[in-house]
């Protein structure tokens, strides 16, 4: 029987990992991720989860350890945030290139310096090109659901890629909300037993981590790229199956009140909930505005995104990360380039805000809508506009 419970997102993720029946958990503590490994350690101690749990000596060790366990075909999970994630960087590429379906929950947090433990998306954006499947969650239920889904999709023989599940540090990780925990039988049906064909096995020797000389490296990387793009169909199938079993629907690109909208607010992660509130208010006033939640970041959902915005005039995009010296926040710049060759396309207005825990409230989203509309109307050469910077007059953009 499924049951309604009240959990913080960290514990919801731990529940999903338990129900997915992982074999190995390796983690190093870092705020705001600590509650996930601590809860898993308790589950192992209580006999509720039959897994080996190892409190390793750094995040680089955590990722390297699950690389080892994944190589022998064990279902493997780790979790981190911020500095921990960037310390893993070297090993992240090994996971995706070796095609190990490791699942990692990231409680998104800002990067040093200055030292800051609060939420933004700089940590995961620094890993954009590591070849992992990357999804974002808006609330605790989604944090649970995406973690389950990550095992289902990552381990699919047609995918075999590691998956990052992003949940906003503190805003989700430490906030308690009601959610539904499904029945274990349904979860077991959704995530079949995992069998890794190429597992290291003395009876059937395989060799992982070989040299790729210039005569083959190019082809290997191209095939990795194709495989990640091809995983899109299983990613969608995974969500379809999920909704068939559990009744909740997810898509790579999700829109809210977007029908007939001329302006869409675009967010990733928990701020989507605030944005939708603002959309409700504006719609009640008769304004043609909606919201677009970009759930899937890698592989990027080009078709769905283009389709969702084809009749829209303006996209007001919030980035929670800088791309220093670049064309604007990573999300807005990618959306722009996804649209560039389209015959008709909306005007993309980028904002960077919510950095290092700075609040982006309803008023700020209201401002984004109005400002983006104004820019579409009047035109602007600005690359993006930094939001809520003390001492900076609002409306001051950054030029290329």
């Amino acid at each position, binding site marked *: 029987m499924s049951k309604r419970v009240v959990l913080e997102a960290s514990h919801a993720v731990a529940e999903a990992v338990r129900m997915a029946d992982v074999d190995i958990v390796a983690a190093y*503590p870092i*705020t705001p991720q600590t509650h996930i490994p601590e809860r898993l350690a308790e589950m192992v101690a209580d006999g509720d989860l039959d897994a080996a749990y190892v409190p390793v000596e750094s995040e680089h060790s955590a990722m390297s350890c699950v690389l080892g366990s994944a190589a022998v075909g064990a279902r493997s999970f780790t979790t981190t945030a911020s500095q921990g994630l960037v310390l893993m960087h070297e090993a992240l590429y090994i996971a995706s290139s070796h095609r190990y379906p490791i699942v990692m929950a990231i409680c998104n947090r800002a990067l040093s310096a200055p030292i800051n433990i609060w939420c933004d998306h700089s940590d995961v954006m620094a890993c954009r090109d590591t070849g992992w499947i990357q999804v974002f969650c808006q609330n605790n239920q989604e944090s649970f659901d995406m973690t389950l889904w990550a095992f289902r999709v990552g381990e699919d023989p047609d995918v075999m890629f590691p998956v990052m599940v992003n949940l906003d540090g503190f805003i989700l990780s430490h906030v308690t909300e009601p959610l539904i925990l499904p029945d274990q039988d349904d979860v077991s049906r959704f995530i079949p037993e995992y069998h890794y064909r190429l597992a290291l096995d003395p009876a059937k020797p395989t060799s992982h981590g070989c040299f790729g000389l210039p005569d083959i490296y190019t082809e290997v990387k191209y095939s990795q790229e194709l495989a990640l793009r091809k995983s899109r169909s299983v990613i969608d199938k995974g969500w379809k199956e999920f909704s068939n079993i559990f009744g909740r629907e997810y898509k790579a690109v999700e829109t809210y009140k977007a029908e007939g909208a001329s302006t869409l607010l675009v967010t990733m992660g928990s701020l989507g909930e605030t944005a939708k509130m603002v959309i409700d208010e504006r719609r009640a006033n008769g304004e043609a505005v909606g919201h677009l939640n970009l759930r899937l970041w890698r592989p990027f959902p080009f078709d769905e995104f283009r389709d969702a915005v084809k009749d829209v005039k303006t996209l007001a995009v919030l980035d929670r990360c800088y791309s220093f010296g670049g064309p604007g926040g990573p999300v807005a710049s990618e959306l722009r380039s996804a649209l560039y060759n389209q015959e008709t396309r909306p005007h993309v207005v980028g904002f960077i805000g919510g950095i290092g825990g700075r609040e982006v409230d309803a008023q700020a989203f209201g401002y984004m809508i109005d400002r983006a509309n104004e820019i579409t109307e009047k035109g602007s050469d600005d690359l993006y506009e930094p939001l809520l910077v003390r001492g900076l007059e609002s409306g001051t953009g950054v030029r290329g």
Partner: protein
Amino acid sequence: MTGQEHLIHRYLRSSKRFPHVWCPGCGIGILLGALVRAIDGNGYGKDDIVLISGIGCSGRLPVYLDFNTLHTTHGRALTFATGIKLAKPKLKVIAIMGDGDASSIGGNHLIHSARRNIDITAIIINNQIYGMTGGQSSPTTPFGLHTASSPFGHLEHPFDIAKLVEAAGAPFVARSTVYHARILERLIGTAIAKSGFSVIEVMSPCVTHFGKWSGIGSAVQMMQWQKDNTVSIEKARNMTPTELQGKVVTGVLIDAHKPTFHEEHARISREMKD
């Protein structure tokens, strides 16, 4: 007493950085006092000193003091310190680390700094747990202890940090506790004055987490524990292993002379010129 207060206040960044983050009863503040008195007692100027720390409750220490200070990333204090010492050999370079900082995520740097014998003073605040992140087991957590990350009892055996750095080649290794604040002060003074890689392991109570998980209890009880469970190296020499069971041996454990990295470097430059 007022004389003491004056001394500390000369070194605190009290107008900018307070209140501090430490819990009431935490030992790190006592170490801070001992460090300041040792530096002052050795007659160094503020500009002669650079304090470098990693991340953790212990990592906050330099932030409160009016020296050259650098608060780095978790585990890397010694590597930043190495760079500083190479570029500014005249500075007295002191790295402040937690047990996690120094012996888990930064453990590699600890043994290599000892092996290299670079002229840095490493102060390791060993509270036997990860304090800042909420009481998870660290590489010095006693075997079997229940912690936030080992609710079934810690399955791993702890490092003896002093032995570790001794084996890695550190020429000066000492251990003390914050209960023995005066002795600690003298040891720190000696370590800073000594050339080469010197390590002081400072046993310090994390009241909030270690106190809770170990069952030792309050700040006062943890201090009492330090008093009751430490033995000076001089006494320890005449004790049997059974008598030493569970005791923390304090004092100067190793004091040797070895040419430092800089001395070797100078020698090789000289030889090349000749």
